[in-house]
């Protein structure tokens, strides 16, 4: 915009040098803000907490951790993890680029005995794997390998597999179609169970099962798909979590929920998911 010099035609009109005063005002305000926020307040706060001025200013800027007013606590507790699986970008890339054909070959060689060729297991104590989340299979096999989860048959089998083959097997089973595409109507399952799945029980601090276990809900990455799972297997796993024998759920979420479920709730939930509800 051309900067038309205002003509001095009318003396009453206010015609200050806006450029100068506004710059001074705006800069003054922000510099007072910087002076107070980054220098005065942190240094004064730090002095009474025994923190020197430089550290206090660095903390106020966010260069150093901690508050400028309180000495920072440090703690070197030895790590004793529950599950070694770490969802890093390259793990997720391996899962995304897994080779289904190699997976099928390993399945026909090893897994078919119990889990079946297309993921339909042959006995109640072996879980179905058809349509299971690849990440969930990957994590369980990884936990068997590191001993975070113990099972007489699975521990040795898992130890024989390396990282790439685990991803291939997981991708293969994840690709197997689930049979019961239109689950029985909700009418059959008791409303208490549907409510537990959809709303959870806030009073007993139980989050809804669907919040984590429904695919696409944005829940934890390793949460397994429960739809069409064997009900005996679900009941068995919930009991293992309740007793604390199974401990490879990160931060013990299932170990906190399972003991709070009553006997018939466990059976109801197992039947609900057995019927194929998502």
């Amino acid at each position, binding site marked *: *915009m*051309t*900067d*038309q*010099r*205002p*003509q001095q*035609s*009318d003396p009453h*009109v*206010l*015609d*200050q040098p*806006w*450029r100068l005063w*506004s*710059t001074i005002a*705006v*800069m003054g*305000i*922000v510099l*007072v*803000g*910087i002076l*107070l*926020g*980054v220098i005065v*307040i*942190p240094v004064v706060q730090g002095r009474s907490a025994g923190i020197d001025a430089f550290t206090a*200013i660095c*903390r*106020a*800027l*966010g*260069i150093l951790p901690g*508050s*400028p007013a309180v000495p920072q606590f440090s703690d070197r507790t030895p790590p004793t993890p529950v599950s070694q699986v770490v*969802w890093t*970008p390259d793990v*997720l*890339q391996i899962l*995304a680029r897994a080779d289904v054909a190699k997976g099928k070959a390993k399945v026909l060689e090893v897994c078919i005995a119990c889990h079946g060729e297309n993921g339909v297991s042959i006995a109640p104590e072996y879980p179905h794997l058809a349509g299971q989340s690849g990440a969930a299979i990957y994590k369980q096999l990884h936990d068997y390998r590191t001993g975070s989860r113990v099972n007489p048959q699975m521990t040795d089998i898992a130890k024989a597999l390396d990282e790439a083959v685990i991803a291939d097997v997981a991708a293969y089973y994840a690709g197997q179609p689930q049979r019961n595409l239109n689950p029985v109507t909700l009418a059959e399952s008791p409303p208490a169970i549907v*409510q537990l799945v*959809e*709303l959870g029980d*806030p*009073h007993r601090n139980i989050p*809804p099962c*669907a*919040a984590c276990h429904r*695919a*696409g*809900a*944005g*829940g934890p*990455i390793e949460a397994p798909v429960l739809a069409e799972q064997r009900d005996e297997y679900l009941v068995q796993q919930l009991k293992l979590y309740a007793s604390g024998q199974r401990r490879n759920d990160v931060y013990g979420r299932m170990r906190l929920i399972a003991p709070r479920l009553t006997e018939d709730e466990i059976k109801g939930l197992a039947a609900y998911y057995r019927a194929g509800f998502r």
Partner: protein
Amino acid sequence: MRNAERLCLAHFWVAFGAFLFACVLGAWQMWVRSPLGAKIGTPGEYFMSVTAHGVSMAYVLTTFFIMGFGYFVAVTALNRPLPGQIWAWGAFWMGILGVVLALISIGSGQASVLFTFYPPLTASVWFYIGLVLVVAASWVWCVLMLVAMHAWKVDNPGQPVPLAMFATVANAVMWLWTTVGVAAELLFQVIPASLGLVQTIDVGMSRTLFSWTLHAIVYFWLIPAYIAFYTIAPRAAGGRLYSDTMGRLTFILFLIYSLPVGMHHLLMDPEHGNGTKFIQVLLTAFVAAPTLLTIFTITASMEIAGRLRGGRGVFGWIAALPWERPMVLAIGLAFVMLGFGGFGGIVNMAYGMNAMVHNTSWVTAHFHLIFGGSVVIMYFAIAYEIWPRLTGRDHPSLAPLRIQLWLWFIGMMVMTLPWHWLGLQGQWRRVANFNYADPIIAAWGPWVVVSLVGGLILLVSAILFVRNLVALHRSSVQAIAKPLYALAVHPPRRVPAALNGFGLWNVLVLVLMILAYGFPIAQFVIEPSPAAIVHRLR
């Protein structure tokens, strides 16, 4: 009807259509979270509704209303045809495509990440592409506003730009500045994550970039209401604008001080130091200045009108004001809600005290009172005022208009005042169903029912509003051409160049953004925060 009117009406009808849809959702949410609807609706439905309510109110109602009102001001305040009408219609249809994409992806359940999207939660890519299209449409509008003002200034050298147009262009300039934040977050972080190109996201950076947009966007919504305060209300009340210069100064202060303050939305975030937060808190205190200047200047303008109609004594002018006119009634109600909402705001921004209210119903009450209350009631008043000018028909009677405005005011106050009390008790936000068996939450039950009643009153008012507009379309009363914009007590014959353009202010905004946002963003460029795994809602 001529092309410009059809353009404005198209924008307004899209805006108020989305508004009515969002009001229905809002009322349903109030019912589902109350003790009366404790077991109704699943979290999936609730968060889908909250996302749709947020997107419709915050992106569709606002952007389309502001664009429509901007085109109207550009034609009537500058008294010349709108440049680039093909571009305007193109932008309109691009915005419609964006809205349809966003609402479909929300409806499919793959975009329940709320309208302020919380990475690492990531929705379907169509949700984000839809919002980008709406923002792109608004960018075209900004360019058209700048072109219109420039063309007018070339034809009228040395003349002060009419205040209404000056404010609209200030709004456009501020919007161009502020959308940089959300555009950067979407294009470089969220959309690549949603497409699966990246598996992780820097949450510290994305929250800081979104905060860049998060405050100035609420002033983008608010400025049309202030344009009505300054340029329409004084004439509607039969008075003059007390000071035109203060009007220009207010809109400039909005441009300068609404941009470098976004981090007061991150006061409780761990990823920034106290110093950078304090700087933005101090600048936020100065964001209150233009609003306080406005309430004085507009109250003085109303006082002129009241006294001209025979008001005596210190407050006699208040009763003498023509409260039967919808615009005047709206000003009064808007200022009351602005008072309550403003009080909520200065408590929110108070550095350490934000810990008392952050993410509680106090904050929900604050923005429902200011945006939902004083800004939206002014959207109603603006619509009532300019609809006759757009259609050539007039309201059959003003009574239903006043009833609608009163209902909106009463509904908003009944809904939001309990929220202040609940917020202080710790009622937190975005809860699909409360555990009313818990003693602490049980005590909130009755107040939630009171706010539900307020929500239902608001729904009735919203339906009545759309009915009033439809009634006008079918009315046979001819609209007589009345001038719209108010004259100032001292009409500006010549204003300093600084008050007639935005060159100087853009430089100051650039310096302020560097000083306020420079380090907070640079710290993530120098050393990115440890990446969080993307959680997709596919």
